[in-house]
């Protein structure tokens, strides 16, 4: 009975969503958006950033929005990831951590193969981060890919645990560095996170990548630890 009610209610809500969208002036039909009239046109034609040189405008508009036009939002989001990482550490943190015994011993193929895979993934991650201005991807997937590569090494190697803590330090430093870069912009042009030199955007990309990688590695590290008995 309860399930039927829930089903009816959920379906009603879905129908309501679709109906309210179909007859709405504010909301265009599927595939018929008029974003060239809205705020996005400023981002596409780079009018929002002012009279910027073409060299400063990234080819990938999404990266431009994330790092330049809405850099402050991204700072907030990096903070959210940072805080959730801290939250997981608080919830699962134990006094004397030890790796969970995962009931399988990595055999020869796995340990060698994971090392090879680690190199490939790590380099791919770095590539994605560094070429975020001209190709799809960016610091978020790049950072996550670096984190995944480390995770693979982590699974195949029992003694790897101690090195992970260094990554957490990197995460904190990167978050502070983000704010620092923003303040540099404030100092030189009077605008927080101002994009006045190509180097600024690269730095921010690398810092976000380090922060994301550090945050995710921290989360997974906490998931794989337990109290030393």
């Amino acid at each position: 009975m309860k399930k039927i009610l829930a089903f009816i209610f959920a379906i009603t809500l879905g129908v309501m969503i679709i109906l309210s969208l179909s007859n709405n002036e504010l909301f265009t039909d599927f595939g018929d958006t008029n974003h060239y009239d809205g705020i996005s046109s400023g981002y596409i034609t780079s009018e929002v950033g002012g009279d910027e040189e073409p060299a400063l405008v990234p080819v990938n508009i999404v990266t431009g929005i994330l790092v330049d036009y809405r850099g402050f939002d991204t700072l907030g989001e990096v903070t959210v990831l940072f805080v959730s990482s801290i939250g997981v550490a608080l919830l699962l943190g134990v006094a004397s951590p030890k790796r969970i015994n995962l009931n399988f011993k990595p055999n020869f193929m796995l340990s060698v193969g994971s090392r090879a895979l680690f190199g490939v993934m790590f380099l791919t991650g770095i590539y994605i981060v560094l070429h975020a201005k001209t190709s799809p991807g960016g610091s978020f997937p790049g950072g996550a890919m670096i984190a995944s590569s480390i995770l693979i090494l982590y699974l195949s190697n029992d003694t790897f645990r101690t090195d992970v803590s260094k990554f957490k330090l990197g995460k904190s430093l990167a978050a502070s560095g983000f704010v620092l870069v923003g303040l540099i912009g404030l100092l030189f042009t009077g605008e927080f996170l101002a994009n006045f030199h190509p180097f600024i955007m690269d730095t921010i990309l690398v810092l976000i990548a380090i922060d994301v990688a550090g945050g995710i590695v921290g989360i997974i590290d906490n998931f794989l630890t337990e109290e030393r008995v």
Partner: protein
Amino acid sequence: MLLYASVLLIVIGLYGLLTNRNVIKIILSLNVLEIGLNIFIITVGFLDLEEAIAPIITLQQRASVIVVDPLPQALVLTAIVIGVGTTAIGLSLAKKMYDKYHTFNLDEMGEE
């Protein structure tokens, strides 16, 4: 089509949230809902034209070529990363619950 599929995903996620009593299942429903929502937001900025391309284009060409809306994409990009954070928090809570009650089912945990 994808618009309706995404709304259906949202509905399925909500249905899962309403009916499930298992913590892991609840988090799974949330993830389904989140995927549906992400697709939905992307469809808002989609331009169903042959010549519309992904928003990766140099500044000189932008005047002559139509691109899809990049803003929803940027927002969804951040939403995905935050989704990992929320899932991680939820799962760590579930883990703590399991440590205490030795079950994932809310009915068997009892009122406290």
